């Protein structure tokens, strides 16, 4: 398929547990940062500077390279007005794009529904991991959740191929096309066939895949590889989701955070190389988000839950640079000891939905939000 016929797709990476923005994009020339972070800081000489004021934490080398090529947008000070410091509630807010009340539909679930209103392709949205993140949950919207692409589908325990073949054959017959004149049975039949179809199609992806990129062995890198495999198999998938963590670094933050970013940065950059090798980089956007930031002052070993956070966008069509204002560390500007958010996360969502996926954002994110300019025209 020629490159200009590809439909834009989105890879969403959730950093579970709240990534520390101050130790990710470090304000290394700001004395206040070292005052508030006497122990849990990144020394100025170690950062990978992007300008005179800010630099990436040292284990983000591969992302720094993409930044240098203009493919990384940083959205600083992202969040919502009245911060909630509970992981679960805050994740829900981001998942459902609804800070005011408890909502049930995920923003990406709604996006999938709008991308494929008839539900023609059961693989329009895929989660790589077990269970469905609430972002993707939306009643009536089929989303596949892939724990392991190699064994994905029904009866993964059956190792004997012939045995598995017999079982799948029987399953296909039992859920076959005939009519029961019973809406529940008919619905189960349809669902069973969707499940089989999704699995049959997905299982072809690893076999079709070839690449010179060698991903690391950690689970996150394997998920990113699975995403690339499915993307290159060209199955019509538009939204890919995966998550990694835990970034909940209350204690021992420095080594933990370094290892996490080494994994994320390496796998994202490897995936990007893979996209380039296969000509998908300009049609793919990666969104990296986390539920909130962390407290400005360290606790002697790590950092506690905070408010304003950091999101990133990566891709060949991303206009690299800093978006949102980097929140001030001045005491007068803080919010109960936290970074104050200065841009609503739904601005980033709306920009992606309208300008990248071509959807109507207000109906998905529950309102009108100013767009950011991180996508190349």
């Amino acid at each position, binding site marked *: 398929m020629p490159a200009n016929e590809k439909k834009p797709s989105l890879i969403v990476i959730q950093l579970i547990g709240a990534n520390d923005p101050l130790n990710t994009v470090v304000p290394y020339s700001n004395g206040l940062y070292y005052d508030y972070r006497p122990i849990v800081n990144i020394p100025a000489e170690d950062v990978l500077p992007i300008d005179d004021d800010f630099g990436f934490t040292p284990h983000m080398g591969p992302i720094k390279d993409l930044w240098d090529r203009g493919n990384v947008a940083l959205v600083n000070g992202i969040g919502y007005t009245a911060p909630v410091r509970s992981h679960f509630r805050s994740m829900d807010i981001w998942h459902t794009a609804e800070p005011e009340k408890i909502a049930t539909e995920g923003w990406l679930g709604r996006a999938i529904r709008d991308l494929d209103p008839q539900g023609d392709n059961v693989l329009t949205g895929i989660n790589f991991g077990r269970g469905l993140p609430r972002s993707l949950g939306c009643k009536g919207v089929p989303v*596949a959740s892939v724990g392991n692409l190699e064994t994905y589908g029904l009866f993964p325990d059956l190792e004997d191929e012939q045995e598995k073949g017999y079982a799948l054959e029987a399953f296909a017959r039992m859920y076959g096309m005939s009519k029961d004149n019973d809406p529940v049975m008919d619905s189960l039949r349809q669902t069973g066939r969707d499940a089989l179809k999704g699995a049959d199609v997905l299982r072809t992806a690893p076999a079709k895949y070839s690449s010179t990129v060698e991903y690391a062995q950690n689970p996150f890198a394997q998920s990113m590889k699975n995403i690339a495999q499915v993307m290159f198999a060209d199955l019509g998938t538009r939204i890919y989701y995966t998550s990694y963590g835990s970034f909940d670094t209350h204690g021992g933050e420095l080594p933990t955070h370094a290892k996490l970013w080494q994994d994320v940065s390496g796998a994202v950059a490897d995936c990007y190389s893979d996209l380039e090798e296969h000509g998908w980089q300009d049609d793919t956007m990666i969104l990296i988000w986390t539920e909130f930031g962390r407290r400005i002052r360290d606790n002697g070993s790590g950092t*506690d839950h905070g408010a304003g956070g950091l999101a990133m966008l990566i891709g060949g069509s991303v206009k690299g640079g800093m978006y949102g204002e980097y929140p001030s560390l001045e005491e007068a500007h803080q919010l109960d000891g936290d970074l104050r958010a200065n841009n609503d996360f739904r601005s980033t969502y709306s920009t992606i939905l309208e300008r990248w996926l071509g959807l109507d954002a207000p109906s998905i994110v529950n309102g009108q939000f100013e767009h950011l300019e991180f996508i190349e025209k």
Partner: protein
Amino acid sequence: MSNQEIALMAHLMRRAGFGASRDELEARVEMGYEAVVVELLHPTDPQNLPDDVIRRYHTEQAEMRLADGAAAYWLYRMITTRCPLEEKLSLFWHSLFATGYNKLNQARSLINQIDMFRRHGLGSFPTLLVELSKDPAMIIWLDNNENHKDAINENYGRELLELFSLGIGNYTEDDVKECARAFTGWTLGNAEYMATRASRDSIWPYSRIAWFYEYREADHDDGEKTFLGHTGRLNGEDIVEIIVRQEATARFVCTRLFQFFTADQVDEEGEQVIGSMMRTYFDSNYEIRSVLSTLFNCDYFKSDKARFARVKGPVELVVGAVRLAGSYQAPTQGIEQVARQAMYMGQGLLQPPSVEGWHEGIEWVDSGALVERVNFVAHELANVENPGVRKIIDRLAGEGVLSPEDLVDRCLDLLGPMEVSEETRESLVEYVAHQGDLSLHGHQPGDAAEKRVGGLLSLACATKEFQLA
């Protein structure tokens, strides 16, 4: 004892519990249907694993601050209880009065709420509603700690009427406000401490210690109120007394019980059953035990119409499969994984998506959930070392050489009995026929013959029919 008696008992145990093994069904048929209903409705000693034993092996189930450990703990109780209706009904109240961890950050308080359902779930409905109104998890979940004399917060007052009793359309907006006023002062004893904690402690904003209920007279609006036509200086208990007297409440509660225990869809005959349940509700002074007794003993419940008329919920499916396979009878590592399985299928225990609870019926089963359901149950039943599977194999072994048809029929019988369509049966027969007749003569644990049985049991539980209870 007849097959019909076994099938009826299996139906009762699927609904009033999480299914039962053939041994248990035979013992219960001996007791007689009415006597079994009486026993189920009067839970005495559930003979669960003692909490101290569980804690020794599962430290995450000791403090229960996190949802995973707490959900696993409740799952243990469902899996090992000898009083299954107690747990099944608690699951019903949990779905109806859906309170979620995501706002609470304190799973212990949720487990305390479930325990309250065990104590009051079968008793008087007004008592249950009063206890619910005093329940710390509910107070936080629906903001009644923010409901003050001079500044009401309507959240609890509204949901009490809309989602927990009368149902929408049976009260006015003024009734909501008056209801909220009546519940002012129903709050947490340590509310201020918690508020301070919330602003200072960013790790556990709501809770490191358990909450307790306190009635604060000074913060209670003692003025005159008019609620559903009754005027007086009404307090929360008075509101509950008025609510439970309403026909709309009787209809609401009986309909929800009917749908949970009998059939997802209410047909005309079902409406008549609900009518009898409502009469019992009033005659018994609002006692849930009596209402359920009417339901379980009515002809409709026992008839073919009610068989397999419900889609199994994920927790019901998981607990049923584990009880059938007998795989978790002692404190076994991995039980949290089992609790997580239900979440993968769309029902995170203690984590309902909102106060409306889960969307039940056929909405449980989307394609991702079906894959999880089939794979989990297949995994449990393919393992011929599981005690429940061994019992099935032992019964089959006594029956000589089995043709594919006989083998399928015997397995379907021992799995329920399950009723399947001819098409399903033929597919299963064809699957087994690949390897011809089965002889378990001289079988050894885990040998090829046994594995064939495990494979068939797995596939029989991958059917459409197995998705129904």
